[in-house]
């Protein structure tokens, strides 16, 4: 139906040749893009097989037209092999196109007679397409001799009739309006094309008008059909196709305008009023100006068009405001349990999904697709066995939610009837929702960890405080106090002078303990002095049974040591070393320097260490307390050791770095 001059009037090529060539080239590019994208999407859910067939038919039509035109342009003989094949291809595409479109409609024709009608129409479309295709092939090989024009008419009219019938009957009133009206429009367009063709064939306008009508009619129909197609046959890359398709189309259109302008501006008209060089210059400048304007406007027009088309075709959810709302909702959540409902709503409502679930991801529970574990979106075929293990069996899209550096949750999405196929834009939105959920999970975990850490620290502080209190109480055993008081009570009557001495010593002992309770360091001199007083009381209590010896190197007397560090060791020696031993006992306390190390010793000639006696345990406890204090103050530079003493008894050795203190 294109340029009739191809066979018959050889004047043909005329003024519309270039424009038509460009239009066909654009058509080939677009349909090729469509075919590639539908093939890529074929594995994904929501892509009917009809899409591929449609793309194939459209490609046949465009490629055939282009081939025929190109052959014509390169001066091959009329009706040569290449022209015949192209011609056959083009009209096979035209004859077969009702098949995929009817198949797409069939989804909406589900009740009673509509269903059977759609089936009948589908069968009829296939039979007629097959018959016409066969005839076309035979005709192109020269086996049949039928008029070329009547073949073209047969293909066009059969398609038109089928589309008009299908568009009129198959979609119901209840079909979504986004499908219903485009369907009607498409049927109408097909009908219109046939009318144009009839008019052109029978009213016999001149060759130029015929060519114009042919180029315009066929490509307008292709365009309408393409866009109408996307309204009810959504597939995953539909939005991408629309974006690039628009761009290709726009380029084709602009090129057509430009070439037409170059050819159609009548140079004779210009020369009638101007001198020829001036006219030529004017013409050229006009064309260059036009070209520049078109080039400049391209980006804006393209941007505007694709945005408008996207909005009109896919009614994209208002993802930006949804994302903002989700962020605000999530920031108000402080419990991980509450994240799921909010995220599910945020995914479901804007995309009109039939269902969305956020579930914890357990790597072990089943065999997951490898990509999912690495954080990629996975789409499931209806036959995928994973459906059985999922908590939402109709889920089509699995969006991993990453938190703490790994996939922790899955967002399952099942498309609803309003958007049967999720397009790329929708997936991007789901990805963004998952990202927000993951970062909120991360933030909550960090918050919880911070709280945990804080409470652990508080507990530790409390334990330290308790340990200090315990240590303080352990400094002077209450037993010592009461026994001393008992002794004084006796001495008051028998020996008032000794009672007085005893009382003073007891006072001195407690004064030292109280004064040193609040400070951590004292001098060796002070500590030894304190021990002398303390042990003098014990000597009175045990009279003949206790002998105490001090051996302090004067060099170390000013050294700093932790206050009351020896007293627990002395008390231990008295209680567990000397206490159980009948008869006299000896206690030796020494302090000396060994280079930079201060060595403090408490020795007794008492029971000694025995693994089978509880004394070792108690002694160990006293030593452990001292070791704990040393660790706090000196870390690993100080230590305490418990050894058997030569000649019986026990020796406790404290080593710590030498350190002078300023005498207060």
């Amino acid at each position: 139906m294109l340029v009739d001059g191809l066979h018959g009037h050889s004047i043909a090529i005329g003024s519309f040749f270039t424009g038509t060539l460009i239009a066909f080239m654009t058509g080939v590019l677009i349909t090729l893009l469509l075919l590639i994208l539908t093939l890529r999407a074929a594995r994904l859910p929501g892509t009917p097989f009809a899409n591929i067939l449609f793309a194939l038919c459209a490609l046949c039509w465009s490629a055939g037209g282009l081939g025929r035109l190109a052959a014509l342009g390169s001066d091959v003989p009329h009706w040569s092999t290449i022209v015949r094949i192209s011609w056959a291809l083009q009209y096979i595409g035209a004859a077969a196109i009702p098949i995929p479109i009817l198949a797409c409609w069939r989804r909406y024709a589900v009740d009673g007679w509509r269903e059977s009608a759609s089936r009948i129409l589908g069968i009829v479309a296939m039979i007629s397409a097959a018959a016409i295709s066969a005839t076309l092939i035979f005709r192109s090989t020269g086996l049949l001799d039928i008029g070329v024009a009547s073949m073209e008419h047969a293909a066009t009219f059969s398609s038109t009739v089928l589309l008009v019938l299908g568009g009129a009957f198959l979609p119901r009133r209840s079909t979504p309006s986004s499908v219903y009206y485009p369907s009607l429009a498409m049927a109408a367009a097909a009908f219109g094309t046939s009318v144009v063709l009839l008019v052109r064939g029978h009213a016999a306008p001149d060759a130029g008008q015929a060519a114009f009508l042919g180029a315009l009619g066929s490509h307008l129909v292709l365009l309408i059909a393409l866009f109408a197609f996307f309204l009810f046959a959504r597939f995953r890359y539909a939005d991408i196709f629309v974006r690039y398709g628009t761009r290709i189309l726009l380029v084709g259109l602009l090129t057509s305008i430009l070439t037409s302008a170059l050819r159609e501006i009548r140079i004779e008209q210009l020369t009638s009023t101007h001198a020829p060089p001036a006219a030529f210059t004017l013409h050229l400048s006009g064309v260059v100006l036009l070209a520049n304007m078109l080039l400049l406007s391209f980006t804006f027009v393209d941007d505007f068009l694709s945005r408008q088309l996207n909005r009109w075709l896919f009614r994209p959810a208002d993802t930006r405001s949804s994302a903002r709302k989700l962020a605000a909702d999530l920031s108000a959540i402080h419990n991980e349990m509450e994240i799921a409902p909010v995220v599910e709503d945020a995914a479901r409502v804007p995309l009109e999904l039939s269902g969305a679930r956020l579930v914890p991801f357990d790597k072990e529970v089943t065999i997951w697709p490898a990509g999912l574990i690495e954080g990629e979106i996975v789409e499931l075929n209806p036959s995928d066995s994973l459906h059985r293990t999922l908590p939402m069996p109709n889920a089509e899209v699995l969006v991993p939610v990453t938190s703490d550096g790994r996939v922790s949750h899955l967002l399952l999405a099942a498309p609803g009837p309003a958007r049967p196929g999720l397009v790329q834009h929708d997936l991007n939105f789901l990805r963004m929702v998952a990202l927000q959920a993951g970062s909120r999970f991360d933030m909550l975990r960090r918050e919880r960890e911070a709280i945990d850490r804080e409470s652990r620290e508080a507990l530790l502080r409390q334990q330290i405080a308790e340990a200090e209190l315990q240590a303080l109480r352990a400094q002077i055993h209450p037993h010592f106090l009461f026994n001393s008081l008992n002794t004084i009570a006796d001495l008051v009557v028998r020996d008032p002078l000794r009672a007085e001495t005893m009382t003073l010593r007891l006072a001195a002992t407690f004064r030292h303990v109280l004064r040193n309770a609040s400070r951590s360091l004292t001098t060796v001199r002070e500590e030894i002095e304190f021990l002398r007083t303390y042990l003098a009381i014990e000597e009175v209590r045990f009279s003949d049974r206790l002998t105490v010896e001090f051996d302090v190197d004067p060099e170390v007397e000013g050294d700093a040591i932790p206050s009351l560090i020896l007293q627990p060791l002395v008390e231990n020696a008295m209680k567990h070393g000397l206490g159980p031993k009948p008869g006299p006992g000896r206690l030796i306390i020494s302090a000396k320097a060994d280079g930079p190390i201060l060595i403090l010793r408490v020795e007794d000639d008492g029971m000694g260490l025995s693994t089978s006696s509880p004394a070792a345990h108690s002694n160990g406890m006293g030593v452990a307390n001292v070791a704990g204090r040393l660790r706090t103050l000196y870390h690993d530079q100080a230590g305490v050791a418990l050894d058997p003493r030569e000649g019986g008894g026990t020796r406790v050795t404290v080593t710590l770095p030498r350190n002078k203190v300023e005498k207060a």
Partner: protein
Amino acid sequence: MRSLIVDDEESARSRLRRLLAAHPEIEVIGEARDGLEAVRQIEALRPALLFLDIEMPGLTGFEVLRAIPNDANMPLVIFITGYDEHALAAFEANALAYLLKPIEPERLSQAVTRAHALHAAVDGAPERERVLKVARESQPVLRQIVCRKRDRAVLLPPDQILWFRMEGGIVKARSASDTFWVNHSLTDLEAGLPPDVFFRARREVLVNLARIKEIRPYFKSGFLLVMADNEATEITVSERQAKLLRQRIPGL
């Protein structure tokens, strides 16, 4: 009441004696300065009442009570302590008499009155049982064993005893060179001695595993233990206990 004062501090003893002077019904028949002396005195003097300090060199007050014969002659006890939270709780729980240092005269006279009343009672057994129960619970581990031979009593650390054997209703303890009798039952000893050292070879024998010279297989699946005493005494292990011994000593 014939009474014995047990305290390691001279001043404490003299003060108590002075305070008791206000109670003519108490007759102080003696004093002991440590646990072992207390055991000897108790057995020699048979006092009706003990003023017993708990913290003492040698044997503690509780160990003294576990070492003396538990018979009708066991004296009533008034415990004395400077400060011992656990012991105080046990005394309170078992309604036993105790005195805190420095001793208050009023508390002393209450305790004396109570002891007097108990002394007059027909049966002192429940009180004795409670005293022994507190002694056992307060100090479950025996650090020293009071070993007797004729009228002599010595303290031996458990690791110097090779075995204990029940012979004719009396528990005998065997050191490297000598045999003594002790006042503990085998069950009491087994509970109070380190379980990884002392092993019940038979119903009537408790052996010190550290003092075995040789272990020989015996009839069936039993064992014969050759001890490290001068006579190299042989002790058979019952079949039932042999299994436990195998678990105790790996590779046997």
